[in-house]
């Protein structure tokens, strides 16, 4: 059957044509043609017009917020995600399994729910916003709120990337270093961190990629003021609501290119991580 074709290794198993055919057809209709429509619509713009839309002040301000807040949120997650992963792997404490289970909540929780919940909790009269307000910190309707929302949705990516890597760290190596006189901090820096770093970088990039495209959990807490607290996905939605299809497609193409770049970095980081693991063995 499939053996006659040069691009597929011979196998006695059936169903290759059918499964690959179905998967390919599905991807063509659900992913490839729609993405092509976006690219071609944006490409139908003259280059200078595309450039004008993609770099107008309102768009530039939205990139600054989207990428800046996403980067900050990914950094916060890298630090706290690492601490949480460490706590879960190294310590036994009451409620550990519960904490471990709720880490995945942002994966399962609809973004609109986390959006309205965060907006209400951090609003000036909300449970947390009330106290933050009294010490002069405003979270809701500022860029800080955007960072908070993006931190929430990115957290599980870092924890779930770092956790298995920390479990793999060889404790006897740590003990050896300590018995040779290394301080706990040196052991952390020289033994643990190098082992975990590729996974931490992968988690960071996954959280960053997710944050850049995020819409639902952000728009409620952001306040959505043009030039100040308006993220790029929202600007696309606004352009669509004004029937500015070309403008939406242009900004969509910019975001799609960023997504591809993120996807390539994630693949490269995965390669690094796998080589690290293979190199140790």
């Amino acid at each position, binding site marked *: 059957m499939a053996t006659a074709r040069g*691009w597929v*290794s011979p*196998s*006695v198993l*059936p*169903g*290759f044509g059918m*499964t*690959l055919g*179905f*998967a390919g057809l*599905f*991807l063509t209709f*659900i*992913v490839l043609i*729609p993405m092509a*429509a*976006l690219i071609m*619509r944006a490409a139908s713009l003259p280059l200078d017009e595309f450039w004008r839309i993609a770099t107008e002040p309102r768009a530039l301000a939205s990139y600054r917020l989207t990428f800046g807040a996403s980067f900050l949120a990914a950094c916060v997650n890298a630090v*706290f995600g690492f*601490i*949480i992963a*460490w*706590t*879960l792997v190294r310590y036994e404490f009451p409620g550990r399994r519960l*904490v471990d*289970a*709720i880490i995945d*909540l*942002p*994966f*399962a*929780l*609809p*973004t*609109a*729910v*986390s959006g*309205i919940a965060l907006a*209400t*909790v951090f609003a000036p009269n909300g449970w947390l916003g009330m106290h933050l307000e009294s010490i002069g910190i405003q979270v809701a309707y500022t860029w800080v709120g955007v960072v*908070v929302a993006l931190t929430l949705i990115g957290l599980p990516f870092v924890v779930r990337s770092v956790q298995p890597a920390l479990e793999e760290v060889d404790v006897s190596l740590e003990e050896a270093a300590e018995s040779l006189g290394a301080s*706990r901090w040196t052991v952390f820096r020289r033994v643990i961190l190098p082992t975990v770093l590729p996974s931490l970088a992968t988690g960071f990039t996954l959280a960053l*990629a997710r944050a*850049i*495209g*995020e*819409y*639902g959990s952000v728009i409620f807490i952001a306040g959505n003021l043009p030039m100040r607290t308006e993220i790029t996905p*929202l600007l*696309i939605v606004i352009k*669509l609501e004004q029937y500015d*299809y070309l403008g939406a*497609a242009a900004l*969509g193409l910019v*975001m*799609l290119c960023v*997504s591809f770049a993120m*996807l390539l970095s*994630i693949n490269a980081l995965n390669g690094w991580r796998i080589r690290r693991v293979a190199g140790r063995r």
Partner: protein
Amino acid sequence: MAVADHLIRRQQNPFVRVVLIFVSVLFLAAILIMPVVSVLGYAFSEGLGVYLNALRSHDTLAAIRLTLTTAAIVVPVNTIFGVAAAWAIAKFDFRGKQILITLIDLPFSVSPVIAGLVFVLLFGAQGWFGPWFRDQGIQIVFALPGIVLATMLVTFPYVARELIPIMQMQGREAEEAAVSLGAGGWMTFFRVTLPSIRWGLLYGVILCNARAMGEFGAVAVVSGHIRGLTTTMPLQAQVLYDEYDLVGAFAVASLLMLLALLTLLLKTLLEAFGARRRRA
């Protein structure tokens, strides 16, 4: 030496340990637990009766029906896709496999807004196929088909992503043995492959369902927000929230949150069950 080591650890760890556990729990409480509790707090802030009445409103019931309908179409199709893609990728070696895997990962890094935008560009009034479908009297954007397509694009990777590593780990020997003993393709799949992937498959389906019912960004772009007609549950929560109907918004949100918590519970149970079976 070993004793000294032990002492060093004893002396250093308790303080760091307590601080780190405290930091972890505090961070999670502020960013995860507080919002979850607040959803329930606001939903029931005016009592159970008001909560139940909010859920019984005409538009909210319509939103629940639309969400269930969408999931009932999207989840089976995505499950079939996931099983087919995982079978091709895990059981065969072919050129272009990496491209296929990358395509499957694409929705994870593409903004949901883009996922909705592409279908508006295809089927909207000024879209490639928009005018043709309009002439046939078929409405795609701002109607159920658009909502289904956008949801499908965002959620199709979940089953495939769950199955591919499991099926790759299991290898091909069992299926090859079954086929060489004369079993047909379907029999091999149902009797050999399916029993060994069923827990992963179940979790993939549950996760896909949670994402499909909760999808917001992609659906917001294609829905048109026609109340009682094209608002899914997450959109209905937004509509009510924007109208300052907090009890109504959080009542809808509480249902979606219940779905998320159920999903997590099932995941934890499935993992525990899977681990026990592997040990046995």
